């Protein structure tokens, strides 16, 4: 059984069609890259997988580990192992980063019937994970993402991913706004989590990130559907030729 199976997914927001019969199968152990021009539906796909309200699924199915994800609340999905690294991580004034991390981790563990982490165990995990991502103690003492630079916010997303150890990580343009050093740190964080049990979907505009997170499969998304699928060389091809060829592709649903 595949870890994630998306079949004929149709999604609208405010009556506007964004996804038009998207099919995607991701097996455990794989890294998929989804590339595409602005407005092709990349972020919508990410949000729909995480369970954001406002998006109306008008047709199709999403199975995670054989279960209907669309019927689950966002927090249930997270506890099952779905993680979205936000394109624009949100600032939450007044909520301490450590409180947030601990609440999230323990909520997921509780849901899975696991014991809550003791304070020393939690602290140890945070120290290890933050050290690898060059996240300072000072950042951890602040409120969630408040006063963080763009790059710090993205690293904070990867920190959360490292602690929560999701089975499916969806990275929504995690590379945007990162300089080359930060990009390497983030990519290393993602690569550390690669394992035969886990899968990653990397949503990106540019090929650059894929030099560091090397995908097994690359998809091109245009007008709400996957229009081409290939190996990692497809990303390089796109870098050279651009997306224009795909935007002209006819969309059967319309």
């Amino acid at each position, binding site marked *: 059984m595949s870890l994630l199976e998306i079949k004929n997914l149709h999604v609208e927001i405010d009556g506007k069609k964004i996804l038009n019969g998207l099919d995607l199968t991701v097996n455990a152990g794989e890294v998929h890259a989804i590339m595409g021009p602005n407005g092709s539906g990349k972020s919508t796909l990410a949000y729909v997988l995480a369970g*954001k309200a406002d998006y109306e699924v008008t047709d199709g199915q999403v199975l995670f580990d054989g279960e209907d994800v669309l019927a689950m609340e966002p*927090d249930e999905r997270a506890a099952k192992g779905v993680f979205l690294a936000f394109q624009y991580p949100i600032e*939450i004034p007044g909520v301490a980063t450590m409180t947030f991390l601990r609440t999230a981790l323990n909520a997921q563990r509780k*849901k899975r019937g696991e014991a809550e982490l003791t304070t020393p165990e939690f602290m140890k995990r945070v120290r290890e994970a933050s050290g690898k991502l060059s996240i300072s103690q000072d950042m951890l003492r602040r409120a969630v993402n408040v006063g963080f630079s763009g790059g710090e916010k993205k690293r904070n997303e990867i920190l959360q991913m490292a602690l929560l150890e999701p089975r499916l990580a969806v990275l929504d343009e995690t590379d945007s706004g990162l300089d080359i050093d930060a990009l390497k740190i983030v990519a290393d964080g993602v690569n550390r989590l690669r394992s035969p049990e886990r899968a990653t979907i990397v949503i990106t505009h540019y090929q650059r990130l894929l030099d560091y997170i090397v995908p097994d499969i690359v998809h091109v998304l245009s007008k709400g559907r996957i229009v081409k699928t290939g190996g990692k060389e497809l990303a390089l091809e796109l870098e050279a030729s651009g997306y224009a060829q795909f935007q002209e592709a006819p969309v059967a649903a319309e």
Partner: protein
Amino acid sequence: MAELTLMKNAAEQQLAAEWTAAKAKLPGAAPLRAAAFETFAKAGLPHRRVEEWKYTDLRALMREAKPLAVRPDAAAFATLGETDAGLGDLDARRIVIADGYLAPGWTDLNESDPGITIVELMAWLGEADLFRLNSIPDAARKDIAVSLNTAFMTGGVVIHVRKDACIERPIHLAHVFSGKTAAAIYPRSIVIVEPGARLMLIESHEGPDGIDYQANTALQIFAGDGAHVDHVKVTREGDTALHISSLMADVGAHARFNTFGYTTGGGVVRNQLFLRFGGEGTVANIRGATLLKGRQHADTTLVVDHAAAGCQSREVFKSVLDDESRGIFQGKIVVRPGAQKTDAKMASHALMLSDEAEADNKPELEIFADDVQCGHGATAGDLDEDLLFYLRARGIPSAEAEALLIQAFVGEAIEGVEHAGLREALIEAVQAWLKARG
């Protein structure tokens, strides 16, 4: 203009009858009491056409005036139990005031600290001249709730902190309503903090649910030049109680004055703050957090009088309104002629947890000096859906995510409390409120 005389309602008639019956027995300050009662008798209970009481029509809300509470007997005092005001095991010197009377068995007035004396209000009234009692800010002088407290006040304490004394342990004035039937209580306390001295004062007010008792409480604080006073008021009266409080503070030069009001209890609550900065260079933090549910009504009415140059005040008030509750904030900043370089910023924010809740905001600035920085801002809104989604996408269930955000919202006001133990206790009180909300 022709004077309009309203028919006296039942509550006003009952108050007049109480006065006639009690005035000869009320201890001390007879002329002051009589003058204060006269102020009430002329005006009657404030109603919605009295601007300061626009949103809290006391005349309509107070259908009847409850009889004056009697001094609890020894047995009644003995049943008080621990009154921690929901502050847990906070280390503080606790003074219990039950039904408006100082409780002998629960009070240690004689703790030996040469920097501070605490005496019973009535014992003090007998010997002291009355100028402190009568020394109240202009805006409070014509206020009817203050007048009624002055007319009927029964007991409380007078705390005197000597010059330059630093009182390490917080003083906790724990007010409780101990009666089994509804009654009216009028506690009054006076706190004198001499120049250079430091005091942390907590006052709490609580009582049983289901009894529609009426509390009208007043606290006067005199903070001398260079004094540092922290004041925290915790209001968690019973669910059908009427609670009116008046804080009157007169603050000298180069002082620090912090006050924080935490309100979760009472059917109808009116918190009045009349603060006057009479000396230069004082810094004040004036904050409050109100959490309401059901049909609770809480009104914070604030008058900050910058009467001297170069003072800074920050006003931050937060309310969390669930169900059909109603939260009111009226904040007025007055800058007197000559109070140049005043720096005053006021903010009030309401978080609406229900479509049926109501928030009323009335900020006012009265500025009579030309070189000042004053501003105010007010907002009312729901919990942010994007923030909720972010938390939920990390596995935090909806109720817990809401609780985190509500706590963060209120936290901005609580973080102004300088005493770490008390700050923790208040955060725990908020968590308990959120837990009860479910």
